[in-house]
């Protein structure tokens, strides 16, 4: 009758016009590859849905699109789907006039799918090109990962029925499996009942199928005798309202089943006749296959574009999260530079110690008058023993800077934490310890400052060899000069006292500057202080980078990859172009046999 499933016929017949099929197949395989590499590691709102969609798409590609495109002439697969208790199994049995699947009163009844086909088509389905994920068996099973194959000689060749599990029972595996099977259907035989037809769940699936272009046939089952016409009319109305007016509608009355559990032959006559006609006409059959395939392919582009958008959201979110952390630590760094720049750090403890170090507060204010006494102090420093005052100054510097560092780091950690918590994706990566600065921050901060101080002393010693200052520098111990340079780092606003500073009582600090300039020479101190400050800031930057990395490492660990979105879009566009070129439905508009109820 036809060449379906005949190994002698050319099984890889080209699709549509010309050689578009291999191109399309290649594009589909590329798309599958691209899909397989996508990940949605960040918990943005779209991620869960995108992950599900990706899985469903890959399954659909493997289960249906790729094998169906390769063999357009393979038997037509009718998936019988619907709510639990709608009578799907009984209907399948009655259609093939054999008890091939087990109906029952317990819900849900069918848990593993059963495929019924003519013995001649059995070979094709056994090849497991279609629905490769399901293990073929010949015995009834309850394992949802198996597909029971049953041959029914009463069935017209070229047609296969798949009894799918329900779509709405408490068994979640059933729902997932039936969605997978429906995505592989050439034709969906949607079975509902007089009590079920207004349920919300199946209508959602119908809408999905309709958007995907799947060919749908509706059976209204278990209709109590007298009300049949009225209910059927209502259902037709509802179908029309959902743009499904083209779907043929069959009414099967509620009747007693016979001893074999089959409906009386009269009840299913129209439906059987309709399927026979469908199977008998290769053009119509091919039309159904092509329309569903074309619809499924056409639906790929928007879906994959949606996935690409979800990928973009991932990369965007990763950028936002990075920005939040970097901004927090940038602010911390600014706090520190600010503290160093405006000399305010000098005001309290450090200033007092500096005054002690150079003499007394009064002396500093009247520096010119008392230069002689200060010289005594200097000569004491020059002996190489900086004395208690020098040590105190060093400690004061250290503790002030350390406190500032610690507070800035604590604040940055808190800001970054709050920032991540605002984003669901960030909140998922957080863990309470991140709220605090990293472990042993105080020790690290103090070590940083001691290292810096040592660095300054080395710098002073190294610079000691050069220029005019060398002669003078020899007169002073490295320690004293080093301390002076350190203070200069805090005190200098490019050595220009601002009105604000003077007003705020920091005038003494500025006076200290002038003194230093007078002693050491303006340029030398400026150069040394600039170097020391750069060194300090570099060390602080490193510390903060380390702190920020506690956050960023978590982001890196989940691997948000860049460029996947573009790859997906390109692959989807290629599939769409291939589909257009293949022109699967261009030959004839699909004319289904009418349902005559």
């Amino acid at each position: 009758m036809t060449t379906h499933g005949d190994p002698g016929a050319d099984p890889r017949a080209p699709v549509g016009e010309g050689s578009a099929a291999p191109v399309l197949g290649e594009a589909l395989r590329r798309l599958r590859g691209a899909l397989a590499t996508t990940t949605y590691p960040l918990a943005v709102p779209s991620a869960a849905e995108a992950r599900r969609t990706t899985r469903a798409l890959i399954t659909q590609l493997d289960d249906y699109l790729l094998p169906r495109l390769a063999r357009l002439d393979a038997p037509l697969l009718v998936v019988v789907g619907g709510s639990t208790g709608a009578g799907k199994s009984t209907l399948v049995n009655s259609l093939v006039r054999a008890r091939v699947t087990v109906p029952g009163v317990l819900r849900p009844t069918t848990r593993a799918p059963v495929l019924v086909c003519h013995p001649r088509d059995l070979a094709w389905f056994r090849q497991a090109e279609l629905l490769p994920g399901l293990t073929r068996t010949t015995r009834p099973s309850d394992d949802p990962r198996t597909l029971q194959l049953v041959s029914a000689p009463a069935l017209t060749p070229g047609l296969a029925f798949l009894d799918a599990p329900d779509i709405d029972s408490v068994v979640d595996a059933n729902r997932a499996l039936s969605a997978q099977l429906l995505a592989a259907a050439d034709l969906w035989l949607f079975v509902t009942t007089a009590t079920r037809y207004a349920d919300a769940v199946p209508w959602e699936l119908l809408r999905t199928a309709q958007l995907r272009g799947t060919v749908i046939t509706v059976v209204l089952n278990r209709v109590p005798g007298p009300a049949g016409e009225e209910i059927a009319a209502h259902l037709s109305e509802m179908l029309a309202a959902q743009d499904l007016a083209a779907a043929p509608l069959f009414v099967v009355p509620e009747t007693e089943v016979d001893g074999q559990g089959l409906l009386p032959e009269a009840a299913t006559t129209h439906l059987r006749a309709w399927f026979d006609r469908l199977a008998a006409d290769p053009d119509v059959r091919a039309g159904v296959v092509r329309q569903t395939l074309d619809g499924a392919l056409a639906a790929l582009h928007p879906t994959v574009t949606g996935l690409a958008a979800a990928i973009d959201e991932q990369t965007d979110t990763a950028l936002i999260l990075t920005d939040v952390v970097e901004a927090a630590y940038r602010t911390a760094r600014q706090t520190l530079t600010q503290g160093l720049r405006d000399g305010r750090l000098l005001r309290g403890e450090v200033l007092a110690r500096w005054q002690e170090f150079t003499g007394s507060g009064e002396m500093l204010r009247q520096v010119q008058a008392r230069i002689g006494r200060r010289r005594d102090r200097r000569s004491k420093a020059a002996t190489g023993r900086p004395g208690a005052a020098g040590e105190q100054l060093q400690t004061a510097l250290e503790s002030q800077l350390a406190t500032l560092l610690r507070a800035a780091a604590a604040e940055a950690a808190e800001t970054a934490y709050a920032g991540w918590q605002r984003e669901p994706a960030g909140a998922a990566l957080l863990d309470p310890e991140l709220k605090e600065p990293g472990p042993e921050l105080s020790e690290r901060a103090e070590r940083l400052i001691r290292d810096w101080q040592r660095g300054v002393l080395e710098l002073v010693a190294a610079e000691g060899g050069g220029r005019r200052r060398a002669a003078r520098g020899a007169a002073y111990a490295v320690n004293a000069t080093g301390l002076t340079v350190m203070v200069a780092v805090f005190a200098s606003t490019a050595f220009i006292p601002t009105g604000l500073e003077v007003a705020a009582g920091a005038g003494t600090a500025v006076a200290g500057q002038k003194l230093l300039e007078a002693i050491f020479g303006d340029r030398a101190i400026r150069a040394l202080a600039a170097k020391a400050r750069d060194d300090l800031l570099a060390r602080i930057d490193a510390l903060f980078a380390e702190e920020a990395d506690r956050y960023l490492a978590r982001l890196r660990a989940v691997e948000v990859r860049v460029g996947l979105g573009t790859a997906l879009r390109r692959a989807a566009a290629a599939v769409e172009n291939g589909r257009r070129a293949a022109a699967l439905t261009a030959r004839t508009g699909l004319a289904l046999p009418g349902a005559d109820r």
Partner: protein
Amino acid sequence: MTGMIGKIHDVLRPDRGPDVDRLLARIDALTRLLDAAENHLPAERLVAARTVVERAGARLARSRDHTVVALAGATGSGKSSLFNALARQELSPVGVLRPTTGVTHAGVWGPPAGAAELLDWIGVPPRHRFIAGGDEPDEALRGLVLLDLPDFDSIERTHRAEVNRLLGLVDLVVWVLDPQKYADRLVHRNYLREFGRHKDVTVIVFNQADVLGRTELSRVLDDLRHLLAGDGLADVPLLATSTLEPASVDPLRTVLERAVAGRQAALRRLAADLDVVGDDLAGLLDAAPPGTQVDSATTRRLVDALAASAGVPVVVEAVERAYRHRAALHTGWPLVRGLRRLRVDPLRRLHLSDADRPADPAASVVAATSVPAPNPAQRSAAALAVRSVADEAGAGLPGPWRDAVGSAATSRLDRLPDALDRVLATTDLGLDRPRRWWRLVQLTQSLIIAAASVGLGWLVVGYLVRVLGLPPMEYPMVGRVPLPTLLLLGGLPAGLLAALLVRPIVSVGARRARRRAEQRLRAAVADVGQEHVLAPVHEVLSHYATAWEALGQLRSGR
């Protein structure tokens, strides 16, 4: 709220069972819990509990002679047929087109007067209320208000919303399942599972049992029982009914009669609601209160940091120097005392001397001091100390409460600098008046200098007398030294010596003054810390303790 509970209690007192008292006590506990938690927990976590309190108040304020029973089920499960079978007349429309019932119908057994208020509250309009029983009223069901709810699974979303609203208000729910739909995911996951805690007020009816054979029916009922056990409804009544066989509805009728006669359904339902809310809130109150006070070590650290940030060390340093300065003004060698006056008083430089302090600190606007503004490090140290108070006080509390403690601790942080500045400006530093012994030393110094001056004058007079050729004066002799010479030569070093001798005493006094000022300032700073940091924290902690204790009562009263 408490007032309303009291009123309800009075209304109910005549027929109160032990349950009512306990229920009211639990509602009261929940109210206290909500009041305590109100400003500290995210509002959305408390919405459910608030709804329960409101509903319980509203329900208890209305007729307890009536029991509101809802028939809930999927479309096509035969709720309306069952409703009509119970009422023994056609009250609710039955149809073949789905979904049938879009509005809630209410049947009232017995006089409708008392039920009217109840139905107004539930929201069933008068045109959908019926008197059930008709000509021969069913006395056994007197007091029953039966609601025929819309379906919850059809494409009409509004039906679902109506069902969800009503399920929260009724006293007892009869779930109507049927052979086709009894295993639907929607009814089990979205509804029955939610009623796991309401076993006492849940009845399951397996309707349309007539379409199954006897053995099939018992298998299906077993299967259904299994599913119900999965929903946490293992031992709720499960009745098979069929509206085609009126006798099969009788067990359901009996259940309803008992519920109506017992008048306990409303209380049980509210008690179950409280159970659910109590369990929900338990996650927010799962640690015993750590006490309502912050420990002293933390407090001391806070005061240290605040004092440093306020500039207390600078001030006490100034106090010590001011003491020396002022003591020197009084006790110094009078000949060089004048030079001292040229120096600025250290306290005055900070605008902290007595002249700057207003007579009545409370009444006047206090001028800002000139104590240097805290540098970034000091400010950070204060913020760190406040933060560590929050950390230590909140340790061991559930997350949201820890956050609440944190924000309470920092809530007045921005007012802290000003408050600390006021402390410096208004605290008495104890240097108001010169010390009495200073005056004594001053007097002594004056006497010594006077003696020296007398000696000098005397000698000058003697010199003048000799220059003018007058007969020389006879100086009284002390030993072999003339008295004026002794006065002059002894007085000058004596003054210097006296000034030197009091120095150590001044030092001791200066240190003591410094200590006293430090104590006073720290006490004042501690007060500021108490008011601005600890008090808000203590408030949260005591609210937590209240809420925790209320939760205990809420959950113990089961």
